[in-house]
């Protein structure tokens, strides 16, 4: 019972945090806390088998899948929480509260019923008890879940797996292609210039300088430019020049 009173507020807070946090990753982590706490509550309610399954399946597999997809989508992208649909949030909160009240009111009645407890049902131990039921009364449902899992696997393959329809190009093919491109369109055949001419830290966001002093566009990944995180070489150059000037002035002042 102590476990419950410690965990319950934590779970509610985490659940709320999941709903309101701007970053999806934070939501996932909050959900993880709720799930692990739930596992403990299962253990507290004579369901050791579920305790294990909850941690293995939910926290271990389901949540990892969520995190995996979040990585693909962009882990540090944070969502705007400004509501764009008019009245949606207000109505959602109103309806959600109404719904919560109805649910709680419906469940509050249970107090009248006596708790039988699972001592008798778990007499062989929880796992054999569950197994006994699973392979008798619910055996068909159990078998049918295989259809679910196969569907899921097929579905993931269909939607996410792209079949390679033509042979993968070998290194030789690629080299030939590069030379052809050079011949046809004058594309530079060699490796691209490395970044970081002005690097004051080991950074890929600073473009290299060409011999004439202009920054080389090719030395920076397109993605970084798209994100707008490329350092402005001219600004850096100006800053350095300013520092140099100041040093000169200082030095000059010392001379005088």
């Amino acid at each position, binding site marked *: *019972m102590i476990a*419950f009173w410690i965990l*319950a507020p934590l*779970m*509610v807070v985490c*659940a*709320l945090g*999941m*709903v309101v946090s701007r970053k999806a990753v934070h*939501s996932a982590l909050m*959900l993880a806390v*709720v*799930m692990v706490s*739930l596992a403990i*509550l299962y253990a507290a309610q004579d*369901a050791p088998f*579920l305790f294990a399954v909850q941690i293995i*399946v*939910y926290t271990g*597999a*389901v949540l990892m*899948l*969520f995190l995996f*997809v*979040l990585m693909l*989508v962009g882990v540090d992208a944070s*969502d705007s929480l400004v*509501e*764009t*649909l008019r009245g949606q*949030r207000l109505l*959602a*909160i109103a*309806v*959600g509260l109404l719904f*919560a009240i109805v*649910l*709680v009111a419906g*469940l509050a009645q*249970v107090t009248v019923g006596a*708790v*039988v407890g*699972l001592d*008798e*049902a778990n007499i062989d131990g*929880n796992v054999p*008890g569950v197994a006994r*039921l*699973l392979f008798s*009364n*619910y055996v068909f449902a159990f078998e049918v*879940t295989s259809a*679910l899992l196969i*569907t*899921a696997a097929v*579905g*993931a393959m*269909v*939607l*996410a797996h792209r079949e390679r329809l033509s042979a993968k190009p070998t290194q030789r093919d690629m080299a030939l292609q590069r030379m052809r491109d050079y011949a046809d369109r004058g594309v530079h055949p060699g490796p691209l210039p490395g970044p970081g001419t002005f690097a004051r830290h080991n950074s890929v966001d600073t473009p290299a300088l060409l011999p004439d002093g202009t920054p080389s566009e090719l030395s920076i990944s397109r993605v970084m430019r798209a994100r707008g995180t490329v350092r402005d070489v001219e600004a850096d150059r100006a800053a350095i020049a300013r520092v140099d000037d100041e040093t000169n002035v200082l030095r000059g002042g010392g001379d005088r």
Partner: protein
Amino acid sequence: MSPTPFLVLSALLFSIGTLGVLVRRNAIVVFMCVELMLNASNLAFVTFARQHGNLDGQIAAFFVMVVAAAEVVVGLAIIMTIFRTRRSASVDDASLLKY
């Protein structure tokens, strides 16, 4: 120990989940909220199992986990597909079909 606190907790978690579905735009978070709803149901199942003294509720929770696992795979696959096409995981952006 009385089951009521567990049930109230489950109802609260369930309601928070529904609220999340309604207010969040990120499809992945929306889906997490659905998972929270399923988890809340599981808590109710386990609690009722103890109250009634039979293991059917625990079996139900077990089945829900299997179903949830399969659903997650399918759901995330669909969300990934739509993300790749639109470069956005916001459910509001997918609103070509209306009226």
